[in-house]
Structure formats: C-alpha cells, structure tokens
C-alpha cells in the first residue's frame, strides 16, 4: 500500500467507527432517555400514559401509607397539583414527608404513578434541583424551601 492508501484506510475506518458511535447515540437519545415532569405537567395532560418518566416534587405531608409487604403509597405535590404514587421496594434513607423526592416509573391508566425507583437527597441540606425547579414553576417556592437548598 502506498502512503496515501494507508492514510485513506485509516481515515475510512475512523469514519466508520465515528458513524457507528453517532448512530448509536442518536438511536439511544430517541429511545433510552427519561423525561422529567412535575405533578402539574401530569395534571394538565402533557404526558401520554405509558411513557417512562421522572416525577419530582415534595412528598405530601400525611400521605405515606403502607400496604402489603414493602409496597408503599404516597402523594407527590408541587403545591398546585398532586399525583398518587405506588412503589414496591425499600425507600431511601432520606425519604420523608414534606421533603423533596424524585420517582421514576410510569403513569397507569388509573392515573396512579407506578414507580420502580424512588430517589431522595444525599444530604439533608439539599433538595434535588429538578424538585426545586418544579416548585419554582408552580409558584410554591417558599423561603423555607430556599433555605433548604442554599447553604447557611
């Protein structure tokens, strides 16, 4: 092979790998990502039932109910709207009423959000950013909540 041919082989192969990577990324971005929604988004029907979502908001005070086994029901609120959630499994350590949470799963036809993952905060000073944004969007971003996210 001449110098030129060698270089072309190399560039051609690099282009192939790059194209494969781009293809995979585009495919996965279409198919394998989860959208974040607030209870208000769900209430106004922005979301089709059966799509995988992340739902963020505060765990409504007094809403946690235990059912059979490790199944638990609670409601997630952004102040304006509320969504009932069921989850089977172990809740994170910092999951509490009145605190921020992010639940991942799908809305069923009965309007209940069936979560397969529930996240809380890593630190009691902290609120998930998505939750803070959802609260701000619904106009329920109060002084207390602000204090909870900002240091000091």
């Amino acid at each position: 092979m001449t110098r030129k041919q060698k270089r072309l082989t190399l560039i051609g192969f690099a282009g192939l790998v790059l194209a494969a990577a781009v293809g995979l990324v585009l495919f996965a971005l279409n198919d394998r990502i989860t959208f974040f929604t607030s209870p208000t988004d769900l209430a106004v029907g922005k979301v089709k039932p059966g799509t995988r979502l992340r739902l963020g908001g505060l765990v409504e005070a007094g809403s946690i109910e235990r059912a059979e086994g490790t199944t638990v029901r609670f409601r997630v609120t952004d102040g304006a709207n509320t969504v009932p959630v069921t989850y089977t499994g172990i809740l994170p350590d910092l999951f509490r009423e009145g605190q921020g949470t992010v639940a991942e799963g799908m809305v069923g036809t009965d309007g209940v959000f069936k979560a397969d993952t529930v996240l809380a905060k890593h630190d009691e000073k902290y609120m998930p950013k998505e939750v803070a944004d959802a609260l701000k969007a619904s106009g329920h971003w109060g002084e207390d909540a602000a204090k909870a996210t900002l240091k000091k």
Partner: protein
Amino acid sequence: MIVEIGHYALVLALALALVQSVVPIWGAVKGDERAMALAGPISVGQFVFVAVAFSALTYAHVVSDFSVVNVFENSHSTKPMIYKISGVWGNHEGSMLLWVAILALFGALVAFFGRNLPQTLRANVLGVQAWVAVAFYLFVLLTSNPFARFGQPPMEGRDLNPLLQDVGLAIHPPLLYLGYVGFSIAFSFAAAALIEGRIDAAWARWVRPWTLTAWVFLTLGIAMGSYWAYYELGWGGWWFWDPVENASLMPWLAGTALLHSAIVMEKRDGLKIWTILLAILAFSLSLLGTFLVRSGVLTSVHAFATDPARGVFILGILVLFVGGSLTLFAARAATLTKGGLFAPVSREGALVFNNLFLTAGTATVFVGTLYPLMLEATTGGKISVGAPFFDMTFGPLMVPLLIALPMGPFLAWKRGDILAVVQRLAAVMVLSVVAVLVTWMLKGHDILPALGVGLATWLMLGSLAEILWRIKLFTEPSVSLRRAVGLPRSAWGTFLGHFGVGVMLLGIVAEGAWKIEHVLVMKPGDHIRVERFDVAFERAVPNSGPNWDEVIARFEVTDGTSNPPIVMEPSKRTYRTRSMPTTETAIETYGLFSQLYLAIGEAQGEGVAMRIYWKPLVLLIWIGTLIMSIGGVVSLTDRRLRVGAPTPHRVAAAALPAAAE
C-alpha cells in the same frame, strides 16, 4: 493563629506561582539560563507553602476549632479522629485545597525528577503547570476560602455528612485527585511541546511515566468510589452511570487512550499530533469533571454547595485552558513533523484501533453526561440519561475493542501478520468458545451472559498466552525462566493490565446476569432462602457509637452445609447532629469472590424491610481494576520508564532490543 498562617501561606504560594508562570518561559524564549533554572526551586517552594496551608486546615479540623467556618460546617467534637482528618477534604473548600496541594506536589516532583530534561522543556513545562496552579489558587482564595472565621465562634459543629464518614470515602478523594491532577503533567508537557514546536520520541518517554502514575491513581480512585457506593448506599449497585461517575470515567478513558498512543510515539515516532491532542483532552476532561462536580450543576453527594460564583469561576478556568490549549494546538500542530509509516494491520494499527474505540466511547459518555445539561440550558426541557442510554452506546463500542485486545500485543510493529496471530491464539479461541457453550448449558441457556463469559475468558487467556509466547514456553521451555526474568517489566505490566480487564469483565457479567435480589418485610424469627443460604432474622438490638445511634438487625446465616452459622448484622444508623439516617450493610464473602449482601430499610410494625442480595463473583469487578493498577505500577518500575526519566542516549540503547521483539 495557625489558621491565619495557613491562609497567608496559600497567598504566598499564589505569589510564587505567578512568578513561576512567567519567568521560566521568558527565560526559555530568551535563552536565559538563570531564569529557566528558577522554575525548579520555585515549584518546590510553592509545594512547601501549600503543604503549610493544608496542614493548617488539617490542624483546625483535628482540634475542632469551630471558629473556622469550614470546621463548624463539616465537623463535630465527637466525630472519630479519622473522620476529623478526612473531613478536611470531605467538603468543597477543603477538597479544592487538596486539589491545589496535589497540583503543587506534582509540580515539585517534575522539578525534582526532571533535572535531566532539556532545560527549555523543563522551564516551559513548569511554567505551564504554574498557569494551572495560579487559576486554582485564585479560585480557592476568591471563592472558596477554607480559612474564613466567624466573629462569634459557635460551641459545636454541624458534623460531616454521615455518608462521607466512611473509610472508603476517606481515601477515595485523594486517590481520584492524584489521578485527575496527575494528567495536568501530561497537559503541561503537551503545551510545552507546542510552545517549543518540537516533539520527539524522548518526549513520549518523559510523559508516559507521569501519565501512567496518574492513570494508576485514577483507576484506584474510581474503583474505590464504586466499592463505596456498593456497600454504603445499600442499593447493591456498583456503577450508576451517574454524571459524577461519568465525570471521572471520561478522563480515565482518554488517559487510557493516551497511554497507548504514547507507546506508538515512543517506539515508532508516530501519532505525535494525536498524542498531544489526547494529552490536552485527558486534562480537559479532568477539568470538566471538576467543573461538573464542584459547580453544583449536578445534584449529588459531591455537590456540597451551590454557589453560582464558583460554577462561573470554574467554567472560566475550563474555557480558558481548554480553549487556550486547543488554539495553541491548532496554531502549532502543523509544525510538528510527521512520524513513521505503518500498515493498517500492525502493532501501530492495533493501537490506533484501541484509540478510536476508546475516544468514541469517551464521546458517547460525554454526550450522555452533558446532553441533559445542554438541553435544559437551550430549551428548558429536563431529561435524565441513565444506564439504558450507556448500555446502548458505550457497551457496543467496547465489544470490538475487547475482542481485538488480546491480538494487539501479538502484532509486529510496522507490518503485522493477522493469520500468524490467529494461529497463536487458536487454542485460546477454542477455550473461549468452550466457555461460552459450558456457560450456556449450565446457566439456563442465556446467550448474552454466556458470550460475556466467553469474552472474559478470551481476554484473560489471550493476555496470558501473549506473555507465555514471549517467554517461549510452548517452543523452547528450557529458556523460559531466563526469558521471563529478562522480559521488560512493561511487558508484565501490559499482561497484568489486560488480564485485569478480563477479570473485571467476568465480575460484571456474573453480577449482572446471575445476581439474586429479595426485597421483603421480615419479623424476628422469619427465615428466607436465598440461593443456597438460609437467612434467619433473630432480633433487633439497639447500639450506639461516638456520634451516632443505631438499630442492629441480627441475622444468622447457614450455607446449607454443616458449617456453623455466620452472624450478619446490618444496621440503620442515625447520626445525632444532623439526625440523618444511613444504611450500614452487612456483607459476607463466600468462595473468595461472591457476596451475600444485607441492607435494612425502614421499620414496619414489628418487622423491618430488608434487601437481600446474592452477588456472584462481584468482587472480581474490583479485583480486576486492582490487577490493572498493579500492572501500571509494574510498568512504572521498568527501567525505560522510570520516573527519573533517564537520559535519551541510554534509553535509546535500552529500547532497541525490546522494540525488536
């Protein structure tokens, strides 16, 4: 007083770094030997002052001086001593101080070990290193001062985040930073080479040990963080594709590519421009990682505080260094001479193959990590990109790389013979296919895990075969021992590094495919059968430690044999100051590598929610990374790569016989 000395020392370090960022480079331009020689002592002085600053903060934490804001917010008088010390870097300000301390340490090491570097190169490298240092000193002093005091000192501190009060987390940040910051040396060498417009094989020989050192620490740091997440978070997972994890994976991937491309440059004088670009990329990705983790754009245990000023400052540093170095690269890369030619099928070709897939993999992780941020910034849409995305993109890209991996070291430089390689690896191929079939038959006719085990076998036996061929075990066993001793250490390093990848893959496949998970509520007296184990909940016992109270759930586990039962005691801890609960898992290792894993959820009536896992071969994931790191260390002891960077003549002579193999 001591705290003020620390603050003052940090300012002095900044002053020295300012001098170091100008004078040696000016000396290199003017050919002024005295100006260039100044770089060495100044970088050592810089390190001494930063060390004083770091010791001062450590002192404040050790004696619990709550008049210092940083100590008040992250410490408590009843906290155990080890966490008082690790608390120094378990917070934003302290960890950035650790960052600059390690940066200064590396600068001093280059000054010390690099005494036989060409004078101008050494001056330029240390000058560039000082630019980075100046930026980060300013960041610490202007936005993240760890030495700030209260007017009215409080009596007691607020304690460290309990999740961070753990031995794993005490050593994870220093290891990770040694890796991140270590790439700054490769970056400084690359920038210096571009400034000089001259680069040769010797350059690669000087850079490789530093890159390798950084890579070893980064590997260990990531593995440590992963093991911590596994046992401390109580979710049983070891990698979550969380953006902060990706932030450390990206420089690791780029650094791994750099290690390999630097070999081509060192041995064959090829891929020069590409290697320089990778050196810039590896450190840029380290800076990006620092930005992602430290700016608060991401929510995680690492985001200690969201202060927009800090994010903007680090973003500024990022733009300045990445933009600046890439501009320098664009302007000067063309002046670098082109290297040797090689056929597509050759050792060089194999290393290019490695680089292509590693950088493509890095790019997919980059997109997956930053796409949500960019989308939110541009359209306000919020998405989450998690494991499914990376399994779909990063996973497939690694497969060809891993399949090709054992063949690379068999190929000759310049022009290789793929048929000869296949011949030598025929037995390994057969054994790998056998591994696939056996796994498929024994493990429930599942094809993907079976292929995974086959690939892991291929990697382990393939890298073993390479080293055995090199010592001629199959052709001339009588000389094997002598050849084994005579083989360059870097050959053993390569073997261990590649073998470790196979071991890690085996752990990943086994854990992913055959783990067993039970989530249930258990009352005292309840039993459950998990795999071959009988797990019995005896009773709950209250207990207390220095700064926490806990409820221990006592379990007795029998493994179906006559062995006496093993007691496992997972617990739910509540740290008093922050009244924050944490899950302390109980883990028991069986058969060397497999683990039974118990984590407690919340109490429910008389019972308690339990998460019980059987994790087959899970330890191999971290043992594999450990073997990879050991490979790196063994390579570092190679004469040719010794950090002391021997003089070019001696190195060239020593490199010849090895290159001829």
